[in-house]
């Protein structure tokens, strides 16, 4: 299948299911109905470089490998630098991060996460010691998918997963099944993108 069509299909599928999974990850404790409320409600966004570093550490990649636009411009330090909360004082005169996320910020985040998660999957599939996706590459069943989901939460969010989170992530496969021609890859990368772009991964 052509990569662009695959990406389009995956994106469409994620658009369908991501909001459901996002509900689970927005509270970090099993769904909105369980969300605890902070009296301070002070939330900072990770800058692109910090989020990218966490993503690279979690996926076992180098920061410069995460994503590159046109194969030439690093997504975080160059192409989407300002969009992802960076500064560029010497040429653009942007001395501080934008006070509010731009409309393209979610797109940039999705691009970086999709690229990085895809790269991790392809590396794991290529052989050697798999970092994250080994279980589904060995035998793609519910148990393996849950193992991968658990690893993703542990590595990308640095905490134990909850049952609700694992069920929600694995449910992604049900939505993808009718439209995917490579369910193992689409499901695994999709779970990874959902965790990597969750509220908990992007803010602190």
């Amino acid at each position, binding site marked *: 299948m052509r990569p662009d069509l695959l990406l389009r299909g995956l994106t469409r599928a994620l658009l369908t299911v991501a909001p459901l999974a996002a509900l689970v990850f927005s509270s970090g404790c099993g769904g909105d109905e369980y969300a605890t409320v902070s009296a301070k409600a002070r939330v900072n966004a990770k800058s692109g470089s910090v989020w990218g570093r966490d993503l690279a*550490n979690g996926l076992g990649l180098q920061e410069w490998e995460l994503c590159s636009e046109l194969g030439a411009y690093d997504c975080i330090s160059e192409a989407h630098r300002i969009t992802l909360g960076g500064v560029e004082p010497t040429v653009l005169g942007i*001395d501080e991060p934008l006070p509010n996320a731009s409309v393209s910020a979610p797109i940039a985040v999705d691009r970086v996460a999709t690229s990085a998660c895809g790269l991790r999957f392809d590396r794991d599939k290529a052989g050697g010691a798999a970092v994250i996706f080994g279980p589904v590459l060995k035998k793609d069943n519910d148990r393996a998918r849950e193992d991968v989901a658990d690893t993703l939460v542990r590595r990308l969010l640095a905490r134990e997963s909850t049952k609700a989170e694992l069920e929600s992530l694995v449910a992604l496969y049900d939505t993808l099944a009718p439209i995917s021609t490579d369910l193992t890859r689409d499901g695994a990368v999709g779970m990874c993108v959902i965790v990597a772009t969750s509220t908990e991964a992007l803010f602190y």
Partner: protein
Amino acid sequence: MRANLLLPSPRSRWGLGGAIGLSLVGWFAATTGNTQPTGPASFCEVYPDAPACASGEVACTACHTTPPSLNLYGADVAAALLPDQERPLSSELYTAHLGEALLAVESLDSDEDGVTNLDEILGGSSPSDAQSTPAPSSCVDEEDDGWSLCGYDPQYAYKKVMLDFCGRSPTIGERQAFAEAKNPTSALHNALDECLDSEHWRGKHGRVWNLANRKIGPLQAIKSGKDVGPIPLADYDDDYAYFVWTQTDGRDVRLVLTGQTFVSARVDGGVTVYEEWDRTPDEDFELRGYDRYQAVVKERRAGMLTHRWFLMSNTMFTSVPRTTAAQAYRAYLGYDIALLEGLNDVPGEPADYDSKGVGEAACAACHATLDPLTYPFSRYEGIGGGVGDSYSYSANRLNGFTDVDGELVAETPEAGVLFGEPVEDLIEWAAVAANSEAFRRATVLDYWKLLLGEAPRATEQAEFSRLVRDLGGDHGYSVELMLHDLIDMEAYGAP
């Protein structure tokens, strides 16, 4: 205690007595052109128990969006202030009746969020922001989710320290190790010490480096040295390196205004190394060449205020370099004169030595402060126009401007006034500035906003004020010691 209100208070906790003694011109700029921003202090004399008054003065934003524009609450106060009286009000009328106006709008709900203005003021929220309401008086945290929402949470603070200062999340193993630490406070401060040495925090283009962006105002097109621009005039790398150096390794942060050496930054094996250096202008010229050398002799140096880039980009070709002084006032002392902040009229000013017409009433409101603030900068050469080498100190510099700005410009004194205190020259100016409460406040505020994403909330004023006080006391002007205190505060460590 509430003082000198013309109306008796129905609430015994405020009482009466004393005298406000206010010079309330300027809080509402419509009253007079001779501004004097004492309104915030008067507000706190009326509401001494308000959290926003913990430091003695409420922020201008209690009543203004950007002064003199009023916010919702300020507009209600203004409407209640002698409504039948013709505008602009005299300062005397304004002074005498402000208290009545504040009382008159207490029961209103200016921002229509369901909480009266009085309850918002006393509860520590903004009466002009519908999104801001007093915090619940009691905190309930029944969820077993690993976070303590009702107060300082060491686990949360640890994660935040790692992200803020190290630039990465702790791993699950590190979090578990922290959770099992016998002394979490010690573990937290050890983590901070480690992260204060990270490239993310103190490296080239790191967080401290970027904290200087607004102070330096870099522009690559006119940069000299590395990454030279098409019109190389000065190298702001000197400024960035010096700034980071003053903020790190426990150094006295006042050096940013008073130091007389320079600092270079080089990256060695992925680590930025800062090295202090001291050369005469001639020596630096020989070593680094015309486009980069620092031209001020040592005894006339005042930290970043006399760096080549600062003089080039602010003084440029002007005789009385008001832009330079205004930028110093804004960047290092936190007062933006364009926003009517930090005005302290000096009698007899502005003298208008350079014949710019600043004595006009509309201009004098600011220039009575700005011009005497500027005189000590007037002997430092900009790009051109004076009598000496560019960016150097020339005692008779203003003689070079008489053909453009008139004969009187040569009589501009070098002595000036900062915060009402006479200073002989820029060296004294910098010393007064560096030892001021304003400098400590601006320094702490920079880091507060960097780490918490916003200025202190009303309920956090007490913690903020303590940091400001202690920076000049227990912290010995060390930013790093101040940060150790900051991460222990509820403002930082409560999720």
